[in-house]
């Protein structure tokens, strides 16, 4: 079994220990394993492929430069900790840009969308994206982590930094608001 194969069998925390010793191969294995997963959450938050890729790269390079930032003594899973790193970078970018610019083809219709609009997939996606972006920040995070990423409530709560009960409340409020807005829109109501 060569080095790369050995690294593939190591868990994330062991790989970080190797990275802390300067192993570039271990870093490569970790990036291969998780870059797509962290890209997904970044994309959901910044709504831009380029920005999401830049953020994931920046986060991993930070880890490479300062691998001791992850402290195994705190017993946090690597992915939980790294989700926080990526999310913080996304929120920083959003603050810098003030508002994430939705693509031009994603415009919310003014009033009473007709049947053509209702059946337009892009338009539906646009509306849904707008509804999600209009949610308060923590509700957005809760929906993205629990629904789109499929994380457990416990892990999502750790990432956002709230108790599980609070996380559940965030998910419920977010979904209730979204459901209300989607129903109103699909029912042909105006906002």
């Amino acid at each position, binding site marked *: 079994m060569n080095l790369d194969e050995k690294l593939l069998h190591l868990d994330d925390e062991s790989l970080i220990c190797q990275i802390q010793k300067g192993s570039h191969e271990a870093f490569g294995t970790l990036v291969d394993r998780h870059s797509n997963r962290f890209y997904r959450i970044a994309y959901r938050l910044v709504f831009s492929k380029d920005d999401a890729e830049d953020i994931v790269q920046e986060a991993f*390079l930070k880890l490479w430069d300062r691998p001791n930032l992850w402290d195994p003594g705190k017993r946090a899973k690597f992915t939980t900790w790294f989700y926080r790193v990526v999310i913080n970078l996304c929120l920083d970018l959003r603050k810098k840009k003030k508002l994430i610019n939705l693509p031009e083809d994603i415009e919310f219709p003014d009033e009473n969308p007709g049947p053509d609009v209702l059946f337009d997939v892009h338009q539906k996606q646009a509306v849904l*994206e707008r509804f999600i972006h209009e949610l308060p920040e923590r509700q957005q995070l809760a929906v993205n982590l629990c629904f789109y990423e499929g994380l457990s409530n416990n892990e999502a709560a750790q990432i956002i930094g709230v108790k599980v009960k609070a996380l559940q409340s965030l*998910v419920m409020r977010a979904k209730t608001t979204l459901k209300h807005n989607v129903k109103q829109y699909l029912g042909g109501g105006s906002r």
Partner: protein
Amino acid sequence: MTTNFEQFKEKLLMYGADVRKWPKDIRLSGLKTLDRFPELQKLVADEERFEGVLKTRKYEEPSRDLADRIVAAALPKKKKAQRKLGMFFSEVLREFSLSRRAFAAVSVSLIFSLIIGFTIGFSNPSGNASAEQYQTSLEDFLNYEGDVL
């Protein structure tokens, strides 16, 4: 532990329309409640439709080479950070490394140069001159009474 109608509605929002995927500790009670209240079936179907809408959300796949790019970007950084004097010299030597034959030729020519240099140096008669001969006496210089222009 049993789940009542209102609790079921909450759990439906929290854990989704697929009751079989709810956390183990509430799954069974959830399924029992669903059997007990047929009107909940409509709520579950409604939730399924809503989740179907949420799943239509736009998503762009990342570039295929994203991971490779990140790994490549990390490499020069580490090299730079670890650069030491020894590494610098070894890199310079590696840069000017010669093949074995060329190395032998350079070595032989250097040895010949040294031999020739030493031979010329030791055969120079001025090399035997004593340093004292070159000393200038200040007194002799001051008392010099030779031709004065």
